């Protein structure tokens, strides 16, 4: 080994030892193995030697090269470990709060409507809509509620000035005009629900001048009152998530159905528990569509029959979630909304379950 090589070996070893961090070591590596590195230079110079020396010189250089490379690798391992140790010595206060990311919420009314749409969707119903400013034919006349009918007075209708198509303009008092719009827009059969805003001139602890209803209509050639009962029982049990929810049907009267029925569910008056068998709670009105309503819309009642129902959205929402007061639904009090709102990332999807 010539002195040059011995010196190189020593100098390299000293430089490797002296490198105090990975970057410095990298510089050492470059100074030896880089394009202009000393080792690279020596290796390149082998070719200029006499042929007899080349072999031995080459072998020697390679040995030194291996040696130095190994030393660098070892040193690298040490330095890297030291760097990590230094890095992980840092401490954050893990109890500090994260960046704020305010979360929004879905109003309970929207939630209930979405649940109703999901369940009735599974029962083959589609969702229809209609305007809230209606004419008094669709809101009353077509539904067999003539001008003098007591039911027409009971409803405390809001009127708007002027006329539309020669009829008085009203804020719809129920979502039943949706029934009429469906039946006058296409031929039967029908399975539709119509959720939406409704209006009656009534304002106290249990009445709001604006509220929400969902109307349902199923018309076909052989739909019976048995289907009405089955459909509503299926819905109520799914909605309240009570497979054994007691449901009772009582005879009643509505101008737009015959026979007409009020529907009660079992609950406990004291605790508000749904599904208890101690008391009955009226929850919706229903019946077989009145022949006059079908005929008013041009659907021959000798060929077609079916059922309709109407349900208060706020009422079932209050029952399902134990909300006791109606008025805050429309007051947009941040505290109430935060308390009763629903996550937008858990929409009612039947295969995930309807629990909010």
């Amino acid at each position, binding site marked *: 080994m010539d002195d040059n090589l011995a010196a190189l070996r020593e100098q390299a070893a000293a430089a490797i030892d002296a490198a105090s961090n990975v970057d410095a070591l990298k510089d050492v590596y470059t100074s030896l193995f880089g394009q202009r590195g000393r080792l690279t230079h020596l290796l390149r110079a082998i070719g200029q030697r006499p042929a007899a020396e080349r072999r031995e010189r080459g072998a020697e250089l390679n040995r030194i090269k291996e040696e130095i490379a190994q030393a660098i690798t070892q040193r690298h391992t040490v330095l890297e470990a030291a760097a990590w140790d230094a890095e992980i010595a840092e401490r954050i206060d893990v109890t500090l709060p994260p960046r704020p990311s305010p979360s929004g919420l879905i109003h309970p009314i929207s939630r209930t409507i979405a649940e109703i749409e999901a369940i009735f969707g599974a029962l083959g119903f589609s*969702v229809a809509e209609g305007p809230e400013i209606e004419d008094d034919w669709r809101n009353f006349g077509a539904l067999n509620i003539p001008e003098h009918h007591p039911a027409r007075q009971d409803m405390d209708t809001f009127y708007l000035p002027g006329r539309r198509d020669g009829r008085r303009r009203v804020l719809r008092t129920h979502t039943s005009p949706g029934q009429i719009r469906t039946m006058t827009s296409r031929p039967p059969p029908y399975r539709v629900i119509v959720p939406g805003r409704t209006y009656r001139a009534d304002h106290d602890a249990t009445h709001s001048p604006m509220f929400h209803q969902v109307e349902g209509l199923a018309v076909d050639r052989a739909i019976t009152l048995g289907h009405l009962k089955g459909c509503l029982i299926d819905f109520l049990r799914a909605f309240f998530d009570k497979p054994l929810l007691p449901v009772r049907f*009582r005879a009643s009267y509505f101008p737009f159905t015959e026979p007409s029925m009020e529907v009660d569910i079992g609950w406990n008056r004291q605790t508000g528990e749904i599904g208890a068998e101690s008391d009955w709670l009226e929850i919706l009105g229903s019946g077989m569509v009145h022949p006059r309503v079908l005929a008013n819309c041009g659907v021959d009642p000798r060929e077609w029959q079916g059922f309709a129902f109407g349900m208060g959205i706020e009422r079932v929402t209050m029952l399902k979630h134990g909300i006791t007061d109606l008025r805050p639904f429309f007051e947009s009090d941040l505290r109430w909304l935060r308390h009763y709102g629903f996550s937008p990332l858990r929409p009612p999807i039947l295969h995930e379950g309807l629990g909010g």
Partner: protein
Amino acid sequence: MKVSLAWLRTHLETWEPLARIVETLSAIGLEVESATDRGAELASFRIAEVLEAAPHPNAERLRACRVETGTGIVSVVCGAPNARTGMKAVFAPPGSVIPATGLVLKSSHIRGVESAGMLLSEREMRLGDDHAGIVELPADAPVGESYARWAGLDDPVIEVAVTPNRGDALSVRGIARDLAAAGLGRLKPWAAPPVPPAFASPLAWATTWPEACPFVLGRTLRGLRNGPSPRRLAERLEAIGLRPINALVDITNFFTFDLGRPLHVFDASKISGPVLTMRRGRGETFRALNGRDVTPGAEDCVIADASGVVSLAGIVGGEPTGCDDRTAAIFLECALFDPVRIADTGRRLGILSDARARFERGIDVALMPDAVEAATGMILELCGGEASEVVSAGAPPAWRRTATLRFSRLAGLGGLAVPPAEAIGILERLGFTPERHDAASVTVAVPPWRNDIAGRVSLDVAPGFLPAKAARMRDAVVAIEPEADLVEEVLRIRGLDCVPPVSLPPLLAVPAPSLASAAAPIEHARRLLAARGLIECVGFSFLAAGQAALFGGAPESLRLENPIAADLDQMRPTPLASLALAAGRNAARGFPDLALFEIGPAFLEGAPDEQRIMAAGLRSGATPRSWIEPARPCDAFDAKADAFALLAALGVPAESLRITAPGPACFHPGRSGLIGQGPTLRLGRFGEIHPRVVAALGLPRPAVAFEVFLDAVPEPRRPGRRNPPELSPFQPLSRDFAFVLDESVPAGRVLCAARGAERNLIAGVTLFDVFAGPAVGAGKKSLGIEVIFQPRERTLTDAEIEAACRKVVAAVAKATGARLRG
């Protein structure tokens, strides 16, 4: 309609307990609103005699009484000032519960004197408000007897909510008939023996308006002694909340409730004879029995004598011709009125009465002669005297009609195959008379009191039906409605709970989506906005016209004629108005930092159906305080971000939008914009709320908002097969540019020009700096943008990169006059 159990039992032979009667009534369509058995809580109280009421030895205000209870003499300490020796009182023994307080009474010693019971006041028994002293009973009250029984308070009272179709159920007999039909007993026969006429009636009827009053009966009775009703009648009326007046009036009230047959008695001496006429009103005013002056018009039917109007027909009688204790002769009225006219008049004049409630629902036409005889008999029994012949005017209208039931329809419509014999039995018990009957069907005569069955068919067909179609629809209803009426009768009596529920047959094995393609994005929008941190509100659709005007419109055509309150009279032009009101309320409660949204109707003149569906969001105040990043006030770009995120989620990319300034008037004119697409499509707007609106509604500052017309958002193409993505193996590279340009040039134009400079190469342009100041010169600004180049086929050479950058600079300069910052 209230009915007491004892009264009900005068028509119904039944021993069913109250609970079962109540349950059955509700099941068959006579919904029970309340059933009160006052007797139950009074059951332990007995009539007692105070043998001695001595001053309490140790208490000035108390008395020590010796009381005979019928089962022994006890000592009672009493604080009532009216307790005195010899009086009859109501005694509560130890162990009984005081109704007013719910406390159980115990024997005790009060200041050293034993008190083994209590003497009760009206209020303690919940029979009235009087608590000044204990109840004092008449001297002949039997000691030891149950107080409730003696006082007639042991009779449970049921209140039924009678539906508008069931005029016949506004009578005790009607309710009894339904109960009997449902198997809860037997309807007792009822008959009114005719009273032979003793003289010719000096008063007669005439009707000049047969459409309003087709038929009326009358009778004069004389030699009467009027006065308080006997206790049995008075108690019967009191039990259902009617105040006894005098025997003659009480008798008419009795029949109103007993048979649902309103009657009226005129004091014959106060009538200017000899004819009472049913006619149109002429604007004359008379004082009605309710103490109010009434002025019937030409559409109101009145009864007039020679002096003028004496009664508002079928609704309320007149005070001047009413009966009092001195009445010795009367003229009895038993009339039939047109239900619609009665309802119209009652509503027009604002008078509710028991008579009106029955006439407007329809009464039993055929009962009129019998009702006259029954009332005559009762008057003669209670008041003595004699009766004239019966006089009449008009003629009874035809009421006989039939209805046919095909038994197969019980299952076919009602879902329950009731055996024919059972169905017929139910109809018979309800008063229907089978006329023809075969294996498949039965035809029944409809009883005269059931005006709701097989009635006249009136349709209100859709506007635009040709006469032939209208006639065909009418024929269909005439053919089928009476049968539906009978199915309903059979089912409600048989019990709707007996109908087996049947799930609807599925239309598809896997159900189709229930939302229409236009409605689904609205749900998506709702979730998107909530996921962005906004809280959903549902606001009233109406607000004060002045508030609506702040948001762009309060047209007369969208103002309610009969608002429930002055501040709820105008349909809102945008849900943003509701949100602003909500923000004001929340700020007033101490919550100024808000992020609210609503998706709902905006009512606009000229819009289809006068309403559009809009999403609106409002942010106010500042972002949350945090150690890690400072709070900052919200600004117009928060609102713009919400709107853009919403539109992007609905398939409208931000690059396709056209933004122009300013927004509409409710926004700050310098800090708001309109969002459009293409030359004409208006999608929404955003910006800071106008300071005038902020001040008017007390909004927290700053307040920013956006509005998006969801019904204007174009439906995205249905996601079908997509082309594979371009996944270049070459790294993108980025270059920054700083442009100086006139302050008035919108930044959007710079971005747009840069983006378009080399479409195949430029993958994105980001504005990262906006700067104005002395360094760039007055009236100038500097924009820093980053451009991302994405090579596709090979790594770019330095020369190619240079060329692309020059293109960017040239394009921006051409579009905006900008130059690269030196």
